[in-house]
């Protein structure tokens, strides 16, 4: 356990990624994610890694995929406008099952919007930004400490499930400096490699848990990598049965393993009569509001999704069957709200507070609304 220090969220992201074994970063700087690129530029050469500032975000994402194919843990970081540009190649990584981590430090949009102001407006884009019925894992940290540990987990999940992982930060946490205690004793996962002899390799067969074993390029095993629908050897095909099998395996790879992937946090939910739901930066508002409500004698609690996708929805369903008042708070116009409604609308009354001007919701607004429910 290291000592307590003051650290910035973006810096914690770099520290966590390096701890996880990230040795390649390609990106194009954009506020409010720039400190991540800067940190990688300074730190990667010291550990034998490579930092490349690419000509744009599209190329950055392509470079990250290329690096990962050679077995190197790779990351890029951006914000809304750049996240839009990365989407096509994120879909490629999803289809070709190339592990990588994409950091989006959300700022206020749409378009170039309010570059220095926070937002949670990319939540739906993180799930559905690239086309097609693709699987994705999205993690959202709500403190600087958690940014460090979740950045490590983002790499672990990417490597374990051979998938791109979106690390969905927001300006509030990315630019926040706060007290952290960092434990270096963490689990690090690296992608599985075949123990078969060199030669032709059926990389996309999928193991029992549906995750494929992709030999790193240059290891002596050969197979094909493509964004086209492919057979288990990686070669393109129009065969409907094969297409169905591939697309189903891709989706079920996450769905069947969701118990292992899902993460959430609860605060004072045991006896709660009103449930605040918030994640990332807005959870900091929610936590303060819960404390204020409790001081007034109102039994409030908070449910905080950490994996935004897949959502730990069984737990949310249980909670909504017991706690009949739900208040969702997000720094957007109500994106995750729809997910909460999908799961909990039959059982609970659901209210919402959003914000779309780059400012933060005040804890007092939350308590006022909660008291009126």
């Amino acid at each position, binding site marked *: 356990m290291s000592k307590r220090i*003051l650290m910035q969220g973006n810096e914690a992201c770099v520290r966590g990624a390096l701890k996880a074994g990230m040795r390649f970063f390609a990106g194009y700087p954009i506020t409010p994610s720039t400190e991540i690129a800067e940190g990688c530029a300074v730190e990667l050469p010291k550990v034998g890694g490579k930092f490349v500032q690419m000509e744009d975000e599209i190329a950055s994402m392509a470079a990250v995929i290329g690096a990962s194919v050679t077995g190197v843990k790779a990351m890029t970081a951006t914000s809304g406008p750049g996240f839009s540009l990365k989407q096509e190649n994120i879909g490629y990584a999803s289809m070709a099952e190339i592990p990588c981590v994409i950091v989006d430090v959300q700022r206020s949009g749409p378009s170039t919007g309010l570059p220095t102001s926070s937002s949670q407006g990319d939540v739906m884009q993180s799930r559905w930004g690239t086309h097609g019925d693709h699987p994705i894992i999205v993690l959202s940290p709500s403190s600087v400490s958690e940014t460090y540990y979740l950045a490590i987990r983002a790499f672990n999940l990417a490597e374990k499930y051979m998938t791109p992982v979106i690390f969905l930060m927001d300006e509030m946490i990315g630019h926040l400096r706060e007290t952290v205690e960092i434990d270096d004793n963490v689990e690090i996962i690296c992608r599985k490699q075949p123990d078969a002899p060199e030669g032709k390799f059926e990389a996309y067969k999928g193991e029992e848990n549906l995750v494929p074993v992709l030999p790193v390029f240059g290891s002596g095993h050969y197979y094909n990598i493509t964004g086209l629908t492919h057979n288990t050897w990686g070669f393109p095909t129009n065969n409907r049965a094969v297409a169905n099998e591939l697309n189903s395996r891709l989706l079920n790879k996450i769905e069947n393993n969701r118990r292992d992937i899902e993460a959430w946090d609860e605060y004072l939910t045991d006896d709660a009569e009103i449930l605040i739901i918030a994640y990332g930066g807005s959870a900091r508002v929610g936590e303060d509001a819960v404390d204020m409500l409790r001081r007034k004698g109102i039994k409030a609690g908070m449910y905080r999704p950490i994996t935004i996708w897949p959502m730990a929805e069984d737990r949310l369903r249980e909670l909504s069957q017991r706690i009949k008042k739900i208040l969702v708070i997000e720094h957007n116009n109500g994106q995750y709200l729809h997910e909460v409604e999908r799961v909990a609308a039959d059982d609970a009354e659901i209210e919402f507070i959003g914000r779309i001007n780059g400012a933060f919701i005040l804890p007092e607004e939350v308590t006022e609304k909660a008291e009126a429910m």
Partner: protein
Amino acid sequence: MERMEIRLAGTGGQGVILASIILAEAAVNAGRYACQTQSYGPEARGGACKAEAIISDSKISYPEVSDPGFVLVLTQKAAEKYVRNLKDDAIVIVDSRVEIPAEAENHKVYHLPILDTAEYKVGKAVTANIVAVGVINRILGICSFEELAETVRNRIPKGTEEFNLKALKAGNEMDLGG
């Protein structure tokens, strides 16, 4: 220390962000909890700049400043824009080159020569932020002078220690009047 919300404001380039980082870090090094944030426009320099820190002896959930208990302003524009929503017992430091804003009335106000001290006593106008850090710690008692000096040393560019520590000392020893 109960939750103390600190706001430092000036113009881009005066170093108020670094000053807020030093105060937050000094608090953490002294065993307290701290958060530090900043807000600035899309321009690279110039323009109003605001940096904030929250210091507390317990964990901090909401990391933003809403009603500061302490405000420092180094420019007239910052004084007009950022001296507001003050806590009843708030302390305000206004640089002596700046007129005391109406919003500061009914609060404890120190009208102090921070910019002048940096420019004439230390001999470097760029050290105003460090002079300010010295004054603020003296008033708020975040940590000992030695702990503060150590934090400053770790956050400033190599080769600037001598004049920055001179600035810190000048701030710490400034005559607060009354």
